[in-house]
């Protein structure tokens, strides 16, 4: 059986995580191809519904990548995002999809290698969890 390749959606802050993605590419580290990056102006813009929709349309996992603590351009967008991720995780648990499939990461713009590492880490986690139960149906 071919190894399961999880489909991930990453909601990336355009200030930090997206630059990190660029750095990552510039230094020749590729982001895994299974990750679709959605650029957002600030993770504070991420809504619970966005996160849920990712799963509704078939993602196996999703994560939000925002600035490191205290470095949000809009003061506390990343902190708000963290709270919303927590609520969405709970909802996913309640629904039966599993809150583990969603995560929040923090990084700074220069952390190119970190960005790639994070994508691989999440991919690994989802691979272990297997395909989204919604996809199996």
């Amino acid at each position, binding site marked *: 059986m071919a190894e399961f390749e999880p489909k991930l959606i990453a909601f990336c802050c355009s200030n930090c995580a997206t630059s990190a993605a660029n750095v990552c590419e510039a230094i020749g580290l590729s982001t895994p191809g299974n990750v679709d990056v959605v650029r957002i102006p600030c993770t504070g813009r991420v*809504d*619970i*519904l966005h996160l*849920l*929709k990712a*799963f*509704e349309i078939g993602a196996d996992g999703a994560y939000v990548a925002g600035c490191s603590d205290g470095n949000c351009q809009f003061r506390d967008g990343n902190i708000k995002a963290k709270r919303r991720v927590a609520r969405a995780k709970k*909802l996913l648990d*309640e*629904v*039966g*999809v599993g809150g583990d499939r969603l995560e929040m990461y923090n990084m700074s713009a220069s952390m190119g290698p970190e960005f790639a590492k994070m994508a691989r880490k999440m991919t690994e986690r989802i691979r272990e969890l297997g395909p989204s*139960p*919604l996809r199996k*149906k």
Partner: protein
Amino acid sequence: MIIAEQKPIQEIKSMIAGYQKVLVVGCGTCVTVCMAGGEKEVGIIASTLRMALKLDGKEPEVIEDCIRRQCEWEFVDELKEKIEGVDAVLSTACGVGVQALAERFGDKPVYPALNTTSMGMPKEHGFWIETCRGCGDCGLGKFGGVCPIARCSKGLLNGPCGGSQDGKCEVDKEMDCGWQLIYERLNSLGQLDQIEDIVQPKDWSTDRDKGQRRIIREDVKV
């Protein structure tokens, strides 16, 4: 405003599991402000519901809408066509809205997506608190603008119980003792004498105890 919170999704799911086409309808007034049943929450509830049902091998059509107020016929009637086209309605309004829909659309099952908890206000972002129980005979004038019915866990009228400690209620150390609030407020107003006399037992006939409460006013009838 009316304060409510969402029911667990599994409970909602079990109510509407048998239907093919469901309308999730929000209310743009109180429950929007308390972030439990406005347009945004309709989206969240519909999305989680679709996923939860899909996991059960069901794929009903879940459509979404939100009206200004579910407690006024004027707005409720806007839903007529949409409701005719579905098998059931899931209302994310308070209990008043749910009942308005049920009354207006007699042949459609209507289900509540929320638990309506109280009348109150957001004390701060993300923290809603009950402050009035609609007892029908407001005594706030006597009690310094702090309601003993809604804010004392026992609805006492003559002072704090022995369970009051550090200004908190015996029921929950995170909850203010309503009576301590009343006392301090009257003290700062210099009006403690207002509660020095014994307050007589409350006449509950203005509350629920005389049946459903109605107000009929000829002067405003059309």
